[in-house]
């Protein structure tokens, strides 16, 4: 697959001297949903701002569908729709007027039918003539999405699209993103909700302190780092792991009352019954047990904290 956005050796240092991006190399594939994960201040918004022309890069090169964002900015920008993180809207305008404004700004003649479709998709049609300031926060965010889609972009940036959005609306947003992808739009989203990346993304990039530390297909990432954990809550706390269990790689937690076993769920199917039998033989009784799969969230936290 060809790259629709190609970022190479991108650096951004703000006037304050703060290094927000460091040697970022990234190719976004045509038609994919790419999730950019990272803690607060990692540089996600900065990366988007540079690609979209809001911030100037300190060094490096970015192309959008083969067009350089600096020397060929018109062609590059015309392809991009951007939904910013903050709710920047013209409070006195109506959704309808502000969408027409956006479409014109991107150099296109009016197309009421398209705008109607977008507004209907976002359940905003009934509100199209209301002043934006009378809309709720979630509606304002959808107005921003509607604006970004007004010029039929091939690439859509969503900077934390579901921040402050309720569960139902989040589901709607996800299905909208999928529909866009099915229509051939490349979507790049940033999020703090790992569940969102897990649910939506084809590929995931993790950024921390201005450095892109990992880019991987979600399925590979989950498999590679996806571990399962069994916790046994013991009846009697143990002082140390009995020698009969020493080759299991167990850990004692919670003052010896929890026994934890971490294993690779994709390979070891029969280990748990064996372990439980072994415990029975050694006379170690437990009150309760639970297993869980490490989520992307933990993978992410471990990745980011490793770097700190």
């Amino acid at each position, binding site marked *: 697959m060809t790259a629709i956005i190609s970022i190479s050796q991108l650096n951004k240092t703000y006037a304050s001297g703060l290094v927000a991006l460091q040697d970022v190399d990234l190719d976004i594939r045509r038609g994919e949903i790419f999730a950019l994960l990272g803690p607060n201040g990692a540089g996600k918004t900065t990366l988007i701002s540079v690609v979209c022309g809001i911030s*100037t890069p300190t060094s490096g090169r970015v192309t959008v569908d083969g067009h350089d964002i600096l020397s060929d900015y018109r062609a590059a920008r015309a392809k991009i729709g*951007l939904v910013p993180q903050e709710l920047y*809207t013209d409070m006195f305008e109506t959704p309808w007027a502000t969408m027409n*404004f956006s479409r014109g700004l991107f150099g296109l003649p009016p197309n009421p039918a398209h705008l109607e479709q977008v507004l209907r998709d976002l359940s905003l049609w009934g509100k199209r003539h209301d002043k934006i300031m009378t809309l709720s926060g979630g509606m304002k965010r959808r107005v921003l999405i509607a604006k970004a889609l007004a010029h039929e972009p091939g690439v859509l940036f969503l900077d934390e699209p579901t921040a402050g959005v309720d569960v139902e609306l989040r589901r709607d947003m996800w299905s909208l993103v999928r529909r866009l992808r099915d229509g051939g739009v490349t979507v790049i989203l940033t999020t703090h909700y790992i569940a969102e990346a897990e649910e939506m993304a084809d590929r995931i990039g993790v950024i921390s302190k201005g450095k892109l530390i990992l880019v991987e297909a979600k399925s590979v990432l989950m498999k590679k780092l996806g571990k399962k954990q069994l916790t046994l809550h013991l009846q009697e706390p143990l002082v140390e792991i009995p020698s009969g269990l020493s080759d299991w790689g167990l850990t004692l937690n919670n003052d010896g009352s929890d026994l934890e076993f971490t294993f690779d769920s994709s390979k070891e199917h029969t280990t748990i019954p064996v372990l439980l039998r072994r415990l029975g033989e050694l006379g170690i009784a437990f009150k309760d047990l639970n297993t869980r799969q490490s989520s992307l969230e933990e993978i992410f936290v471990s990745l980011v904290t490793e770097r700190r």
Partner: protein
Amino acid sequence: MNTATQTLKFNYHAILAIYKFEMARFKRTLWQSLVTPVITTSLYFVVFGAAIGSRMGEVDGIHYGSFIVPGLIMLSLFTESVSNASFGIHMPRFTGTIFEILSAPVSAFEIVLAYVGAAATKSILLGLIILATANLFVPIHIEHPFWMAGFLLLVAVTFSLFGFIVGVWAKGFEQLQFVPMLILTPLTFLGGVFYSIDMLPDGWRTFSLFNPIVYVISGFRWSFYGSADVGVGISLAATSVFFLLCLGLVWLIFRTGYRLKS
């Protein structure tokens, strides 16, 4: 996906969009935008034209009430151009909506054309309304209508450019008020709206010649009555220099991204 933008060379849709947006803002505040200056101007005529003017006699052979008309129009043109253009570009910076303009396929020239064009349109409209209002109070004669229109346009555009610069420079609404209040208004009042600088004592007269507003008002008044404080050529040159200066500053703003891009 669109293909129309692939060959985009000049984004007139964008210019139109910004222009219309600005004019819509104007319409929303039509009452304040038009009625306030009309009332203010009428008051000037009542006070200066009728009450004081009747005792003033003539300036340069022109009835005092008529004499102050070009200056009053200029006074409104300055303040309206500056405040409209500065507010127009400052507002999106303040609310954050400027992100969209910066991320759109528009050139600096197109952005300036749209904002300055809209601000200039408004102030010219206003200037004409004041002219019409003045016509109700005093006899007005325009000796060089083309020069008059030319000055009106040049001044409106120049001060709108100046306002654009102020709007980009200002860090808040206080600073936005600061330039018109503390710089423009005094220079205008001292620039010969209500008097000919010939009426000033010698020292002050020379001092006035350093005030650029004097040239602008003088040129505009010449287009009405054919008489002026300074030659019309000098007026035109001075106004043009100010115009080019503003143009250069705007160019620099976009070159460096000053206070627009981080």
